[in-house]
């Protein structure tokens, strides 16, 4: 079952080439994903990322409930701020998904979840709501994915587009802060945040707008009119890869724990009250047998390591690739991989086998750029 993103027709009008991703039909590129990548780094692009799941959580016990579900201490998340990535774990500490939480008020939080997990994360949350004994009225969870859209404006020139969209106060947003119910093109949107997943939220400027479908259509068209190059999911993938951001399903799943993944950003050390948190602490103290690392191939090498490709130290297989791609900024292939802890030679060279041939690669702690 493939579902079309609500703005697919608008994307096509803008030159989008649709393709399937995680059960959605959406634009994977707009002709040249490398140019879309570079425009994000050097100018400004706009992405329709409505394939991501969106929930609204309301009720007097929402904060307490979420605090019991995710790996980060949410008491440190201020109002009108996002949590940064947080993990949902199974009871063995395996990774179910990484979510982004938005604290509007104590009793009103929003969540963005990964596309493949739109339904399963919700089920999981509902399961835990019951297990933990919360009344649905105290923790009300609505999946608004199919009725809303999420538009990302990314790149150093993003402020010009935000200006053109008539958004007031976006300049004051620090990373992960958001404006609640601001006007965009004269109409109320749900929120505008300083965020993204391209690295531009950290490197320069990246904003995301969460709103209704019709409003989103206007915004997407206006953003392009104001100079943003439309960009698709392939560019989004190469951008996140340059930053070393992890893709659930590819780089991590229920068989990996957050310590192996080195997903420090999503962990509050010592937090024990969430599902699986005890297993994180256990792994942290016990140590792990493998680590996620980055692989940077030699300049000009465009042989792309793909999921499952082997990593070698001399004759020894020391790990395997989980995702790879071409970095336009570095003009070479880069990849994320798991290697044995005993061989996590950050800064040193290993080989990666791509379609039967060995290529020299440097182990690096991402970001790559």
């Amino acid at each position, binding site marked *: 079952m493939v579902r079309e993103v609500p703005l697919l027709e608008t994307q096509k009008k803008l030159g989008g*080439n*649709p*393709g399937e991703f995680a059960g959605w*039909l959406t634009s*994977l*590129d707009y002709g*040249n*994903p*490398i140019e879309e990548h570079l425009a994000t780094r050097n100018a400004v692009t706009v992405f329709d990322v409505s394939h991501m799941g969106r929930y609204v959580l309301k009720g007097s016990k929402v904060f307490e409930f979420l605090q019991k579900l995710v790996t980060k201490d949410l008491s440190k998340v201020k109002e009108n701020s996002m949590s940064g990535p947080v993990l949902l774990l199974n009871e063995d500490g395996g990774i179910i998904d990484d979510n982004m939480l938005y604290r509007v008020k104590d009793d009103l939080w929003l969540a963005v979840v990964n596309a493949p997990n739109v339904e399963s994360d919700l089920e999981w949350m509902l399961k835990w709501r019951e297990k933990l004994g919360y009344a649905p009225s105290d923790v009300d969870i609505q999946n608004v994915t199919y009725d809303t859209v999420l538009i990302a404006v990314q790149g150093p020139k993003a402020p010009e587009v935000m200006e053109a969209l008539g958004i007031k106060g976006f300049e004051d947003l620090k990373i992960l802060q958001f404006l609640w119910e601001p006007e965009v093109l004269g109409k109320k949107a749900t929120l505008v945040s300083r965020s993204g997943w391209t690295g531009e939220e950290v490197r320069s400027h990246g904003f995301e707008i969460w709103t209704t479908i019709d409003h989103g259509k206007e915004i997407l068209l206006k953003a392009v009119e104001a100079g943003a190059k439309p960009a698709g999911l*392939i560019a989004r*993938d*190469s951008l996140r890869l340059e930053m070393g951001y992890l893709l659930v399903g590819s780089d991590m799943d229920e068989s990996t724990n957050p310590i192996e993944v080195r997903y420090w950003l999503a962990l509050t050390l010592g937090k024990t009250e969430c599902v699986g948190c005890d297993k994180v602490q256990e792994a942290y103290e016990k140590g792990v047998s493998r680590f996620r690392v980055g692989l940077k191939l030699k300049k000009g090498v*465009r*042989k*792309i390591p*793909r999921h499952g490709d082997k990593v070698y130290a001399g004759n020894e297989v020391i790990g395997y690739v989980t995702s790879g*791609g*071409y970095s336009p900024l570095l003009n070479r292939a880069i990849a994320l991989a798991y290697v044995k802890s005993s061989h996590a030679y950050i800064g040193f060279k290993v080989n990666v086998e791509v*379609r039967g041939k060995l290529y020299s690669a440097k182990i690096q702690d991402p970001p790559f750029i």
Partner: protein
Amino acid sequence: MGDIVVKTKIGEYLVKDGLYYTESDEWVKVEGDTITMGVTDYAQKKLRYIVNVDLPEPGTEVSAGEPIATLESVKTTADVYTPFDGEVVEVNEELIDSPDLINKDPYGAGWILKIKTSNIDTSKLLTPEKYAEKIRAAEEA
């Protein structure tokens, strides 16, 4: 007959007249005992942007069904197969620096290589009409 444009729900794919096609989405142009090969518009659109092409050395002997070149795209890696035995006589060196010629002009500047062969058997290849049908079938699956 003329070129065929296969329109599907998610895209349009050009199938050029005057060429033969393979099940593995190559196009083949026959001139005497030499074939010129490339990948189809459908193939390049499925692969998406191509960042690298590995070409064989001219002079390489090749056997029918064997992978003879590799295309590395932002999305995946794909082999190019020869339909006939023969010897590679020329490769498109332009692709080394500009692999995306395959995206820009799959049937023209994006040609991949030429093979000299003694056993051309076009009955093993698809006509434009058959190939267009194949695309339609694949897209509707």
